[in-house]
């Protein structure tokens, strides 16, 4: 059976959806996703470098995690500071770092030998076949959810504005730093396990919002559950649609995610 792979898929989907929900509150932007601040870009640079150097699976995971942490620290260091600019600066810094990482990824793809190219592309599109064990991401999901839940009501206020939240009794700067680190580490854990699987982190929180409202006390656990379930489902399709050949699961999440998201956007406009 493929139980470990299914569990790893559930954990990664949960981590991505949770991180997406947190990023949307942190940046107060409904279009934010876990990758917007360059975490997956950094991981991609690390992973592709490892594949290019011919490192074993453990080396790929290791370098991917190092890359994700590097991007996170870079964004945090550059955008750090108090004052009203921080939110815009955080977003801009993240987007620029992500663009830089994208360029490095493209460079490595361009110079990679033919026999490595397929592995690189699969990594970039997201592939649960790389998952060695389900326990690390499951543990990461449990810890991330346990750390986020005590702050859920404060996150409801943060979503309404920094000053507003502070005036109502939220220690805003401390909370934002904690949420940034938590969302980044959750993203890094998922990306390291399964590559950069798209759309789960963006779409799932929106789907849950439609069904359960915007109270983070429900939204965070429900997003984690729904994200996990969606990724597990997509991975099952990816393995069985044109079996015995496998599709990268990132392609399927995007194929499911794009129409759903466009549908949601068109509903919002009305």
């Amino acid at each position: 059976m493929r139980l470990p792979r299914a569990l790893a898929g559930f954990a990664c989907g949960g981590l991505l959806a949770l991180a997406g929900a947190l990023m949307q509150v942190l940046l107060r932007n409904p279009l934010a996703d876990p990758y917007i601040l360059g975490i997956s870009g950094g991981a991609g640079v690390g992973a592709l470098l490892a594949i290019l150097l011919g490192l074993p699976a453990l080396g790929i995971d290791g370098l991917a995690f190092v890359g994700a942490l590097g991007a996170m620290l870079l964004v945090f260091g550059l955008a750090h500071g108090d004052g009203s600019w921080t939110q815009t600066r955080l977003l801009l810094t993240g987007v620029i770092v992500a663009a830089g990482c994208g360029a490095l990824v493209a460079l490595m793809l361009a110079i990679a030998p033919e026999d490595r190219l397929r592995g690189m592309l699969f990594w970039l599109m997201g592939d649960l076949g790389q998952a060695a064990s389900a326990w690390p991401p499951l543990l990461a999901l449990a810890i991330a959810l346990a750390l986020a839940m005590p702050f859920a009501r404060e996150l409801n206020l943060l979503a309404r504005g920094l000053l507003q939240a502070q005036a109502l009794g939220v220690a805003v700067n401390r909370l934002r730093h904690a949420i940034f680190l938590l969302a980044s580490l959750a993203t890094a854990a998922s990306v390291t396990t399964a590559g950069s699987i798209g759309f789960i982190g963006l779409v799932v929180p929106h789907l849950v919002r439609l069904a359960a409202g915007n109270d983070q006390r429900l939204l965070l656990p429900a997003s984690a559950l729904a994200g996990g379930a969606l990724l597990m489902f997509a991975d099952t399709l990816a393995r069985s649609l044109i079996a015995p050949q496998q599709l990268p699961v990132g392609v399927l999440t995007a194929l499911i995610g794009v129409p759903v998201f466009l549908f949601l956007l068109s509903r919002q406009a009305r």
Partner: protein
Amino acid sequence: MNVPLLAVHGLSVEIGGHQVVRGLDLDLMPGGRLAILGRNGAGKSTLLATLAGLRIPSAGHVELGGTACTALSAREAALRRAWLGQVQADPFGSTVLETALTGRHPHLGRWDWETVRDAQIARNALAAVGLAGLEQRQIHTLSGGERQRLAIATLLAQAAPLYLLDEPLAHLDLNHQMAVLERFAGAARDCGAGVVMVLHDPALAHRFCDRALLIDGDGNCELGAVDTILTAGKLSALYGYPLRQIGDCGRRSFVPA
């Protein structure tokens, strides 16, 4: 009763290199109502946010209920003062009742959910600003004036002894302007609340406040009883436009000359 709700000692406030006030001393006792007036850009909002402990002053200090702001946690400060900001940005959807309930946040522990009593307080606050019956409406379907009244209801639900109001009358039509001002003046009269508000109309300031603080935009300010501070001469100088005072039954209004 002898602890001032708000005490300010030697306060200097700057924003972007611009001096708002210099060496301001101020005490607000229970029942006190202070109006802040000044031109656009004089720094009224900046000063009010500093009084709320949301900005760090460049010199001096602010005490809320006898304790320095810097020694209070965000939550303790939220139990001592409620602050109404100018902008209500709502990137995510929410209902009117959920929004009013956010005012109860400082009264709840980390794991608590809002109780029936909190919901009742929020409903009463909504009724007090004329929003009863709109509890389940989405906030982005509200008009500007309704959104402003919802912000005021959230403030009432917070139930702090000191209200710091930045342009509480923004977007409100005349009947709601008077209702809101009477509400806060009543809270000061009947419950010993303190009120500090940024206003644009000197006539309303004279009618609903007992003291006024004029900020000229160059770091100078003048504080005193409304009868001595709100005069045609001082206000003409403040706004840089000649004003004429019209008196009627102890009330004053000012019209451009």
